[in-house]
């Protein structure tokens, strides 16, 4: 486990907001030299604390007006292979995230669609036909916010 000091936390927070900031700019902001900042960022990446970057796109401007979260229960547990289900569901382009969960459902999926009728098509043709898919619950996303988490 990686221990962070105050400056690491500030850097992490700044990069989670905007990962394109240069080590020089961040250093000036937090009172560090450019090489010292660069070393700290490098260390966070090597320790796996920063596991990559995500491009923030405006889904609506790209024509994806609807995001739906699906809770999926597998039917006939034990008789379907989890690997088959996972492989098939992960291959659907409209399925953005696949989480294996414990509780009311077995899997939680994030699905994007152009509109509700497009979503219905994805649900019927691609999700319901997955090997082992049983009961499905859909919730349409209205708003979403990501918070900095316990590094403040």
């Amino acid at each position: 486990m990686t221990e962070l000091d105050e400056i690491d936390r500030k850097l992490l927070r700044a990069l989670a907001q905007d990962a394109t900031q240069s080590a020089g700019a961040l250093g000036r902001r937090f009172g560090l030299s450019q090489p010292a900042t660069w070393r700290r960022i490098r260390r966070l990446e090597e320790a796996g604390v920063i596991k990559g970057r995500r491009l923030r796109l405006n889904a609506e401007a790209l024509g994806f007006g609807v995001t739906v979260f699906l809770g999926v229960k597998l039917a006939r547990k034990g008789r379907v292979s989890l690997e088959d289900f996972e492989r098939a569901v992960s291959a659907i382009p409209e399925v953005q995230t696949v989480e294996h969960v414990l509780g009311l459902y077995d899997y939680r999926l994030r699905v994007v669609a152009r509109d509700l009728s497009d979503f219905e098509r994805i649900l019927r043709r691609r999700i319901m036909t997955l090997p082992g898919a049983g009961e499905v619950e859909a919730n349409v996303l209205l708003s979403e916010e990501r918070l900095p988490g316990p590094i403040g």
Partner: protein
Amino acid sequence: MLDDIDRRILRHYQADPSLSAGELAERCRITSGVCWRRIEKMQAAGIIQGQEAVIDWAALGFAVEVSLRVTLDKTQPRAFDDFIEAARKVPEVIEIQTFLGRVDVRLSVIARDMAHYQQLYRDRILTLPHIADIEALMHIARLKRDEVLPV
């Protein structure tokens, strides 16, 4: 509107946002000048909004992640506002989503271990205002997480 070149750029750029404009251009088989202008245009149009570092909370010792699906008491006119405002103040809440459906609000909560989670759940979550019902889903694994848009 976007054309095929824009889409190609977005596909490669989403797959690896750390690529330089030159590397990206090479993968898209276009000149870096064209690539750069297209990206600037999409940034100006608000299509590309930025880049964020993805934090691995497990690497920071937060091994437990729970999805809490919350139903609110809708007889309270300020139920959503009060609940969300209070949930924002809990540092271990890393995501708040609102829905149309059976669930009203979902919180992503991280904790160091089960004991820490239990303490958070009792002291910080159950004390949030206007909760009518709450269901927990414990994360076991994330199989696909890139949140790539199928452009």
